[in-house]
């Protein structure tokens, strides 16, 4: 949306209320709408996909089973046998983020994962759960996680704060990774899209660079699909790794 000759790359992330006056009265934004849609799509994929309950699955059932098995394998291989207990959580998290990312690639749709408020809330939930799980399983012993083994006692006052900072910095690294990837991709799309419009309207000699920008945008869309799936996967895998640390404490 190149308004007035300048590129408004960040305007696409502005929250607006959705669903007309009803949404406006309760501040229901298009991000919330997309979250509901992502949840419904996940639910729909599993519900409709598993309807036939066929021994030889059709396409949709195959997709649903593959999703289930991929996440289950990831849980059990990363966390260990205890990972079965965390499978519903990781599955929900993975598909919420995956559908959020993928929906955002479509034109006129909103990417709720491009808001750090959303990713930070998810991360706070993950780190909070990891800490609660670790404390429930290990009790006071959990705090030995911050004490590296085989280290002289003199160094502990220095090393324990570093370990604690490293633990807390998961909050930022996990949320910023998802948020930055999604936002950067959409800003690039917006910028090159604006190039196409501005150069295409500037005259006949600018048609070549305009075409080039269009080609870049086509490539970027494909790249965005890759990033959308990859980042959802990375988020889920890191959640599993943190849960592994919580369950096994080193």
């Amino acid at each position, binding site marked *: 949306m190149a308004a007035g000759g300048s590129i408004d790359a960040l305007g696409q992330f502005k929250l607006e209320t959705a669903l007309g006056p009803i949404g406006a009265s309760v501040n229901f934004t298009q991000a919330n709408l997309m979250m509901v849609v992502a949840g419904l799509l996940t639910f729909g994929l599993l519900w409709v996909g598993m309807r036939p309950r066929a021994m030889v699955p059709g396409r949709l059932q195959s997709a649903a089973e593959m999703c289930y098995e991929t996440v289950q394998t990831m849980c059990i291989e990363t966390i260990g046998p205890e990972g079965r207990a965390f499978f519903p959580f990781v599955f929900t998290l993975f598909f919420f983020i995956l559908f959020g990312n993928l929906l955002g690639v479509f034109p006129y749709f909103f990417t709720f994962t491009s808001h750090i408020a959303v990713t930070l809330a998810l991360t706070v939930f993950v780190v909070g759960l990891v800490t609660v799980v670790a404390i429930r399983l290990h009790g006071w012993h959990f705090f030995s996680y911050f004490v590296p083994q085989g280290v002289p006692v003199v160094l502990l006052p220095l090393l324990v704060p570093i370990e604690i*900072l*490293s633990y807390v910095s998961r*909050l930022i690294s996990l949320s*910023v990774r998802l948020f930055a990837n999604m936002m950067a991709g959409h800003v690039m799309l917006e910028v090159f899209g604006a190039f196409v419009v501005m150069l295409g309207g500037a005259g006949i000699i600018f048609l070549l660079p305009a075409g080039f920008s269009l080609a870049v945008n086509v490539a970027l869309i494909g790249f965005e699909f890759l990033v959308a799936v990859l980042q959802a996967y990375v988020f889920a895998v890191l959640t599993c*790794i943190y849960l592994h640390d919580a369950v096994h404490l080193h």
Partner: protein
Amino acid sequence: MSEEPSEREPSFEERLKSARSRQGLDAPPPPPGNSGGIGGMSPWGVGLRVGIEMVSALVVAVAIGYGLDWLFGTKPILMAVFVLLGGAAGVLNVWRIFAPKQTSDRGR
């Protein structure tokens, strides 16, 4: 089956495996030694990940230092201390990503 049976006929599993690999259905096993659980990252991905890990530790440390300074009224001291600790924690995060697997198992 016109060909005569050899001494040791390949089992069904073996034939299936070779057929699948011929058709490219079986992905080659992931290269070992990549810790952190995310295999096959591009150099761009590695750089982004390392950068985020280092900066996030620093951000958390500065926030904590600033908060403690504000709490105790020792304006610049704690923040300076926590910046150093945060830098160290960032390096620790990066080490956790790239540490060889055997070392991390033996060290714990």
